[in-house]
């Protein structure tokens, strides 16, 4: 059982707000989801199984040589930022004083 207050704490940590009625929907979904997982947790011998992070062994994973490669220019990368100055994204000052 997850309380509405706990759900609010999660959304707060995730840095967004939700409406009161949305928490009701979410709470119902948690009941459904946790019911599914309770069922899953009862599957015999599960704890001895190795978790599967990828569909199959990606045998060909290779790291590239440690050499500089061409990347995009910072001016270009910053084109999507709303407030930019001297190659940096500007946010409001968080420390008082000059």
């Amino acid at each position, binding site marked *: 059982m997850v309380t509405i207050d706990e759900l609010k704490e999660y959304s707060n940590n995730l840095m967004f*707000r939700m409406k009161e009625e949305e928490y009701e929907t979410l709470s119902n979904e948690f009941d459904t*989801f946790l019911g599914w997982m309770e069922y899953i947790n009862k599957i015999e011998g*599960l704890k001895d199984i190795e978790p*599967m992070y*990828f569909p*199959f062994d990606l045998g*060909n994973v290779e790291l590239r040589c440690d050499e500089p490669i061409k990347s995009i220019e910072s001016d270009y990368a910053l084109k999507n930022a709303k407030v930019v100055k001297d190659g940096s994204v500007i*946010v409001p000052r968080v420390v008082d004083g000059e």
Partner: protein
Amino acid sequence: MVSNIIELKEKLNNEEDIKLLFNETIKKAKKCNEKYNAFVTITDSYEHIESDSILNGIPYSLKDNFSTEGILTTGSSNLLKSYVPAFDSTVYEKLKNAGAVLIGKTVLDELAMGGTGTTGHTGIVKNPCNESRMIGGSSSGSAASVAAGVVPFSIGSDTGDSVRKPASYSGIVGFKPTYGRISRYGLFNFASSLDHVGILSKTVTDAAIVTDILKGYDPKDMTSLKDDGIKYVNEINNDIEGKKLFYIKEIIDVETEDEDVKENIKLFYELINKIKNIGVTVEEVSFDKSLLNAILGSYYSISCAESTSNNSNLTGLPFGERIEGKDYKEIMINTRTKGFSELIKRRFVLGSYILKRENQEKLYLNALRVRRLIVEKMNELFNKYDGLILPSTGGIAPLFNGNDSDKLSNEYLLLENHMIIGNFGGYPSISIPYGKVNNMPVGVNITCGVMKDALTLNIAKKLEELIEYDGGEYHV
């Protein structure tokens, strides 16, 4: 009809023809958008690189979660509604170099997290086969643009069934090759261990033609596979006599009052009889029902956990639809509050809960353990059989019914969600249309073992010939 691509190609003799086709396609795309809302962006400039590829001059559409340098790419999210990428996805780059002509970016369920086509920031996508019905998702606009006859193929992404299900609901082909067969570089991550690039087309041949162009190792995607050296389009006409298929009893044995589901299952058994008549063995196998019943819970656990982490970069600061605030934290909160729809927020909260240290063992790792058990059992079956065959869905495309369809619910049929197995194991998997129920198209799904992409397309092509599906045309 063997191939829309080849049919179009035969009419293209020079640059003038290609430009003419582009202009005609843009007109169709605009009509399609008025009727079905398939596109976020319809291209306003003609860009074509001459090539000797079979795709030279062929128009196509691209799901709006693939990066296209200089072209708006929104993920159908308000948070990214003015985002213009600074680089190309590998898929877009390969199609561009093959001479294919992009005509538009298609609507998806926001950030590809949904299966209804109702959560994109530009509105709901309607099904060209019946406008009162959903087309499914998340590759909703891609499916609509092909089903409506605007383009011969579209590119989508498939994390649970997001290419195959909308294809099934709209009477077209939806194919996702083996995990890593096509590079994911520049595709917005949803759940990285389940995400596949997929192709939507009218015919199996066209899906093979496009996969041949897109496949291959990409140094920019460490999960991409080395090319298998097979030209799939050359293998699709092989004889499949003597092949062995299976279906899973526990998935098809449905107790339901839904007449559409009953009719679909009847159609499926009729198809099985036809397949047996061409010398293909089809056997019923039994699969541990406790594992099958764990599919949806495991899928939500893995996908929500991965997506919460993957999308934490959407802050509105370096890019995105920034909403101002008194400090950077308030900017992020304002941006994410206004930028994400309710559904996305609910999925992120679930993912965050799953990833919390004290919950990981029971919620995340146990889901990954279930994934292994299912995949190991499937691999055993693929050692004995060439492929799995099942209806792609239980019912037909749902009617629009408010916002309920994407809420988690205990009322679900295994038959509606079994294609997730293809993502758990990274298997090549295809849905092809095989008939109509209640005057709506239904699809049949073929899934084969990992790396058996050519075989999957080959079986699908032979079934396509056997079925002779005539769903009618829904031209705009």
